[in-house]
């Protein structure tokens, strides 16, 4: 025995009871409420002879909506047809207005909704048992974003429920970008919906229209992903790996420094033949550098409320090549008003880059106050760890992550600016 199924018509027509315009509708078995695309009369018709007219939406735009009624597109792998559009506003904040495109999937006879607010798109569908356990939709992970009641501005197309009764709904939205959870409560009855951000480009490609035909974007969408969201975890993982490698290299360099090439205490002696305060030229013992390296010269002067200007030259005894630097060391301290104070320091250091291998000594040309003869502790290190190199490169490695942190923070603040539950609000 075989049953012959009557093919379900893909669409049907009815005439607007007000203006007579022929209206094509697609959910032939389900749709019962209609808004005429020509005169915007809202009426109910379920096969009876005379439709029940509720009224007319005077605010309806004269131009076609961004997604025209009847347009077919594939979103998230499902083929939908746009069968209706409702423009709504918040009852308490009428400046917040958005559009809801009713998407009808003919194969499953299921509906979804594509909501557009300020150019930001969200696909919303009724929660079902099939996807109840999906990890991305666990309510505790979501943040309360908005609570509102809505009013209809205007509508076009067909609906399988009375859109005006939605005014009684208490809607609560929770977000975890790019995901959305919506609770609609009517009395004790609660219904849950799930949503996901859809990029305008995805919408345009799905419905084969130009991106420029879609509304321009303003601000940040409620569930619009922050910049770099797709690579956020990978970016920090990579940054962590690179910083760890850098730190490991730096530790190797610290260990490599080893013993000083020279450690010597030198006494400053006044030069009686020169101007007052001028010291005799002091010469350090020689030391050998066996490979090209950076040299760090540490200086400590036994000063007490005194200053010392100290030009230093490093001389290669074989080639005569010289490196020079000058350090001003000053140390002052005292007690004033019962409190002790200190200014300056007794230590100074200098780094010389890429000093070739060879035998070297240091010449010092001290100049200080008359009668001051401080003791000078000199230490020369080869291959110092050069921490500034580490910090410069670590800064470069952290540059992009920091820029992304700033951009994401700005993005979040703009997102929450549209919410009554703004965690960034100062009042």
């Amino acid at each position, binding site marked *: 025995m075989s049953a012959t199924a009557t093919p379900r018509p893909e669409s049907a027509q009815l005439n607007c009871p007000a203006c007579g315009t022929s209206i094509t509708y697609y959910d032939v078995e389900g749709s019962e409420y209609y808004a005429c695309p020509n005169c915007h009369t809202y009426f109910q018709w379920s096969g009876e002879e005379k439709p029940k007219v509720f009224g007319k939406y005077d605010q309806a735009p004269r131009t076609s909506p961004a997604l025209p009624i009847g347009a077919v597109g594939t979103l998230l792998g499902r083929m939908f047809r746009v069968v209706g559009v409702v423009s709504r506003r918040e009852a308490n904040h009428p400046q917040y207005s958005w559009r809801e495109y009713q998407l009808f999937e003919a194969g499953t006879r299921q509906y979804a909704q594509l909501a557009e607010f300020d150019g930001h798109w969200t696909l919303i569908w009724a929660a079902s048992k099939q996807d109840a356990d999906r990890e991305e939709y666990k309510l505790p992970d979501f943040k309360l974003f908005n609570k509102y009641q809505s009013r209809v501005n205007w509508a076009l197309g067909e609906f399988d429920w009375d859109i005006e009764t939605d005014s009684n709904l208490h809607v609560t939205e929770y977000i975890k970008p790019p995901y959305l959870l919506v609770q609609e409560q009517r009395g004790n009855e609660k219904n849950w919906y799930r949503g996901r951000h859809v990029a305008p480009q995805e919408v345009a490609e799905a419905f084969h229209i130009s991106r420029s035909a879609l509304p321009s974007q303003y601000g940040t969408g409620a569930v619009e992903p922050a910049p770099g969201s797709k*690579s956020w975890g990978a970016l920090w993982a*990579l940054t962590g790996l690179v910083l760890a490698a850098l730190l490991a290299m730096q530790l190797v360099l610290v260990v490599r420094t080893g013993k000083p090439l020279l450690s010597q205490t030198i006494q400053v002696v006044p030069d009686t033949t020169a101007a007052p305060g001028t010291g005799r030229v002091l010469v350090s013992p020689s030391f050998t550098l066996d490979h090209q390296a950076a040299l760090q010269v540490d200086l400590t002067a036994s000063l007490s409320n005194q200053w010392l200007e100290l030009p230093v030259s490093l001389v290669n005894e074989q080639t005569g090549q010289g490196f*020079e630097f000058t350090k001003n060391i000053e140390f002052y301290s005292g007690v004033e008003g019962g409190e002790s104070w200190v200014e300056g320091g007794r230590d100074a250091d200098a780094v*010389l880059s*890429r*000093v070739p291998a060879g035998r070297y*000594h240091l010449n010092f040309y001290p100049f200080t106050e008359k009668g001051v003869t401080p003791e000078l502790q000199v230490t020369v290190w080869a291959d110092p760890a*050069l921490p500034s190199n580490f910090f410069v490169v670590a800064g470069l490695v952290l540059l*992009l992550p920091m820029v992304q942190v700033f951009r994401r923070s700005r993005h979040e603040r703009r997102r929450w600016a549209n919410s009554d539950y703004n965690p960034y609000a100062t009042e």
Partner: protein
Amino acid sequence: MLENLLKFLRPVRFYALLLLLPLGWFAWGAATGTRLLGDDNESTETLTAGGASGRSTIGHARFYHK
């Protein structure tokens, strides 16, 4: 495990290549004994070795060699 890590890092693979530049710069500094932001050398004779930084003050223009 390494395969999973590489898969996880795939979205930033080009940035990873870019990061080789600062890492290479660091390694070059360590290998040649160069302070990347310049050293304290004021000698015009050997300035090219590392370049002068703003850390030192210019002292006397008196040069004595042993």
